[in-house]
C-alpha cells in the first residue's frame, strides 16, 4: 500500500503521466457508464438491427457536429408522428358518422423550418390504417416558403404502407428536377439557373385522410432523412455509430487489460517456477519459448479466427497463450536467476519454506516493480491487436467495436467516398486510449528503473 502511494507521488512529477491517468480514468468512466446505462441487450438490438427502427435513420449521414465547419448547414434528420397533438394540428373537416355514408375527412398539418444549404437524402411517410372493406383515401400536400402548394400524392392505402418521395417517378416528372426532393425544396429563382438552390423557410406538410367506415383511422409518420445525424453519424446499414463508439470502450479496455495482465502474470509465474525447479522443467519452458518464437503470431491468430471461432474470448485466450512464451519470459528468467541464490532465499530454505512458498512469496513479489511498467506498456499493443483483428475481418461478429467500425468503413471504401468521420472517430478513440496507456507506462518505467531517469 505504501509502495503504491510512493509510486503515485513520484508519478506526479511527470506531466505526461498525469495526462495519461486523466484520460484513462475518463475512458473507464465512459466504459462503466456505457455498460450500466446503455446495456448490451439494447446495444445489440440497435447494432444488429430490427425491423421497426432500422429505416428511421439515413444512410451514411455525417455527425451533426460537422455542421460547425459548414457555411451552408446540412439538414438534420427528424421524424414526427402525426398522432402527436403537440406538433401536429388536427382538424376534422367532415364527420358523417351519423349518416349511412360514415365518411370522415381529417386534415393534419405539420410545419417545419428548413434553413439548410443542402437537399435532404430522403423523405418518407409511413401510413398505418385500420379498415374492414373500403380502403381509406389519403392526399399529401406540401406548401413551400415561396407559396407553391404541391400535391404530392393521392391514393387509397392498405393497412401498412410506405410512401417514399424520391422513389415517386410521377412526382419527379411533375417537379422536373434531378430527384423529387430537389424539386420540392428548390427555389423558383436560383442565383445560378444551372444549380438548384434550397428555398429556405417554413414548409408545411398537409395530409388529408378520408375514411369510409365506422371507427376507421389513419396514422401517418413522417421521416426526414437529412445529411447529418446524431453525435457520431450513421453507417451504410443506417446504424447509429454512437452505439459502436460507446461500446468500443469497454471492449477495448477489457481486452487490453485482460490480455496484458494475463500474459505478464502467467509468464512471470512460469519463469519463476522454471528457475526455481530448474532442470527438466526449466529446459522445457526454454524449448517451448523457442518454438513459440518460430510461429508467426498474427498468422496463427488469423488461422484460429478463420477456422475455429471469431468470439472475442477465443481470440483473447489464443492471444494470451501465444504471448506467454515470448521474449519477456527470457527477461524474467534472467532476473529470477540473479535472485535465486540471494541470501534471503537461502534463509527461507533453511527454516523449511516449501517450494511453492518460495516461488509465490519470495521470488515473485520481488519482480513486481519490473513487471508493472511492462504490463502497462503492453496494453496499447493488445488494444490495437483487437482493432487489427477486426480490420482483418476477424472481429467478434456480435460486438460493436472500434475496430469493427474501421473495418466496415474500409470495406465500404469510406476514405475513397469521403466519409472520413466513419474512420476518424474510432481512430481518435483508439489513438487516445493507446497513447494514454503508453504515456503512463513510459513514466512508470522511469519511476521503477531510475537508470532511465533524466538527471
Amino acid at each position: 500500500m505504501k509502495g503504491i502511494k510512493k509510486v503515485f507521488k513520484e508519478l506526479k512529477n511527470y506531466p505526461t503521466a498525469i495526462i495519461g491517468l486523466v484520460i484513462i480514468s475518463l475512458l473507464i468512466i465512459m466504459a462503466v457508464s456505457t455498460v450500466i446505462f446503455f446495456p448490451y441487450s439494447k446495444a445489440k438490438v440497435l447494432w444488429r438491427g430490427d425491423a421497426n427502427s432500422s429505416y428511421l435513420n439515413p444512410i451514411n449521414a455525417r455527425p451533426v457536429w460537422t455542421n460547425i465547419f459548414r457555411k451552408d448547414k446540412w439538414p438534420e434528420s427528424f421524424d414526427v408522428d402525426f398522432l402527436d397533438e403537440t406538433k401536429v394540428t388536427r382538424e376534422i373537416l367532415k364527420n358523417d358518422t351519423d349518416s349511412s355514408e360514415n365518411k370522415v375527412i381529417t386534415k393534419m398539418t405539420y410545419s417545419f423550418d428548413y434553413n439548410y444549404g443542402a437537399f435532404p437524402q430522403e423523405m418518407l411517410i409511413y401510413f398505418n390504417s385500420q379498415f374492414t372493406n373500403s380502403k381509406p383515401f389519403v392526399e399529401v400536400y406540401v406548401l413551400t416558403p415561396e407559396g407553391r402548394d404541391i400535391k404530392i400524392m393521392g391514393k387509397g392505402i392498405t393497412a401498412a404502407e410506405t410512401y417514399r418521395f424520391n422513389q415517386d417517378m410521377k412526382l419527379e416528372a411533375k417537379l422536373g428536377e434531378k430527384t423529387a426532393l430537389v424539386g420540392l425544396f428548390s427555389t423558383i429563382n436560383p442565383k445560378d439557373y444551372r444549380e438548384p438552390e434550397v428555398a429556405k423557410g417554413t414548409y408545411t406538410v398537409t395530409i388529408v385522410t378520408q375514411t369510409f367506415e365506422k371507427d376507421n383511422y389513419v396514422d401517418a409518420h413522417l421521416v426526414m432523412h437529412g445529411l447529418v445525424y446524431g453525435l457520431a453519424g450513421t453507417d451504410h446499414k443506417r446504424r447509429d455509430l454512437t452505439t459502436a463508439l460507446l461500446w468500443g470502450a469497454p471492449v477495448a479496455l477489457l481486452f487490453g487489460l485482460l490480455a496484458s495482465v494475463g500474459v505478464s502474470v502467467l509468464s512471470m509465474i512460469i519463469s519463476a517456477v522454471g528457475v526455481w525447479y530448474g532442470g527438466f522443467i526449466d529446459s522445457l519452458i526454454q524449448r517451448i519459448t523457442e518454438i513459440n518464437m518460430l510461429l508467426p503470431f498474427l498468422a496463427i491468430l488469423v488461422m484460429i479466427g478463420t477456422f475455429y471461432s471469431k468470439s472475442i474470448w477465443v481470440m483473447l485466450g489464443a492471444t494470451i497463450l501465444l504471448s506467454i512464451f515470448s521474449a519477456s519470459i527470457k527477461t524474467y528468467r534472467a532476473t529470477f536467476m540473479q535472485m535465486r541464490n540471494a541470501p534471503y532465499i537461502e534463509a527461507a530454505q533453511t527454516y523449511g519454506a516449501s517450494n511453492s512458498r518460495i516461488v509465490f512469496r519470495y521470488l515473485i513479489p520481488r519482480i513486481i516493480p519490473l513487471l508493472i511498467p511492462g504490463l502497462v506498456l503492453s496494453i496499447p499493443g493488445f488494444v490495437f491487436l483487437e482493432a487489427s483483428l477486426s480490420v482483418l475481418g476477424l472481429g467478434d461478429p456480435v460486438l460493436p467495436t472500434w475496430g469493427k467500425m474501421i473495418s466496415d468503413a474500409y470495406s465500404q471504401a469510406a476514405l475513397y467516398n469521403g466519409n472520413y468521420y466513419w474512420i476518424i472517430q474510432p481512430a481518435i478513440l483508439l489513438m487516445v486510449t493507446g497513447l494514454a496507456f503508453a504515456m503512463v507506462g513510459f513514466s512508470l518505467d522511469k519511476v521503477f528503473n531510475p537508470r532511465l531517469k533524466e538527471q
Partner: protein
Amino acid sequence: MGGTLKTPLTKTKKTKRDNTFIRVTKYSGIRLLSLFFTVVIGVYLTIMIANMGGYVDKIMKGQIRENLATSVRNDPNYQKMAPSAKAKYFEAQVINAEKRLGLDKPFLIRSLRFLWNSLRLDLGQAQLMTSDSGSKTVKLIILERLPSTLLLMGVSNFVLFFSTIILSLILSRKYGSFWDKFFVAASPLSAMPSWFYGMFLILIFASILRILPFGGLIGSPPPKTTGEYILDVLLHLILPASSLIISAFPARVYTWRTFFMIYSSEDYVEMAKAKGLPPQTIRNKYVLRPTLPMIITSFSLMIIGMWTGALITETVFLWPGVGRLIFQAVGMSDTAVIVGTTIIYAYLLAFTVFFLDFAYALVDPRVKIGSSNKA
C-alpha cells in the same frame, strides 16, 4: 632452463586450441539439433492448426462432392447412364479426386508426410490458390509475391534501421537537449501500429490531397515503358513504406538512445574522454564496438522480419506481398500455402539464431561459445 620452459607452454597452447575446436563443434552440433527439433515441432504445430486437426479434410471432401456433382451432371455420357451405373461412376470419380489430393490416407499419416515434405522444402501444390501466372505450385506462388514484400519491407526497414541508429547516436551525445526530450516524449507514438498510420496517410494524401494512390503496386492501366513503371511502383511505395517507418521510428529511437546512453556512461568511456581522445574515436571504438552484438541481433531480426511482410499493412494498402498472401491463404484455408510460408520463416529464424551465437563470439571477446558461464 629456457628450453624446459618452452615445451609445456606450447603444449598447453595446443590443447587449448583443441579444446576450443571440440567445444565449438560439440556446441554447434547440439545447438543445431535442438534448433532443428524446434523447427520440426513448430512446423508440425502449424500444420495441425492450419488443418484444424483434420477438420479441413471434411470440408474439402464435401467440396469435392459438390464440384463433381455439377461437373458430372453436364457430362453427356453420364446423362445416358443407368441410375446404378451413375452412382458407381460418381463414387469412382470422388475417390479419384480424393486420391489426387491425397485425402484417402488418414490424417495422421498425411500430416507426417506433409511435415517431411515441408522440412525438405518440398512445399507441394496449393489446394485452391493459384499464382497470378496460373501456377498451383506453392513455391511459385510465394516467389511471385516475394519481390513486392522485399521491396516494401527492405526499403522501410533499411531506412528505419540506419536513420534510427544515426539519430540516436547523435541524441545520446546531446543528452537533455530539446530534440532529446522531444524524441523521448514522442516515443509513446509507437503504440499505434503501422496500418493505423497508413489509414491517416491514405486519408491525407490519397483522399484529400489526391496526390498519391490509395493502394496497390501499380496503377491501372500499367505504364508501358520500364522507366515509367519503376516510377509508378515507387509512387505506390511511398505511403505503405512511410507508414511502416513512422510507426516504428519513435520507439526505436528511444530504445537505441537509451541503449547508447547506458554504454556511453561506462567508466572506460569516461576514461577515454579524460585521455582526450577525439570524439570520433570514442564513438567508433568505445561506444559502437561494445554495442555491436545488439546491433547485429537487431539487423538480422530485421532481415528475417522482411520475409513475412506486414500482414495488416499489406492488406490495408492492397500490397501484393507475402503478408497479404498469408491472409488470403487463411481466408481460403489453403494449408499448403500457410505452412509453406511458415516453414521458410522458421528455417530462416532458426539459422539466424544459430549464426548469431557465432557472430556474438566474433565481435564480443567476452562471449565464449559453449562455455557454461555464458548467460
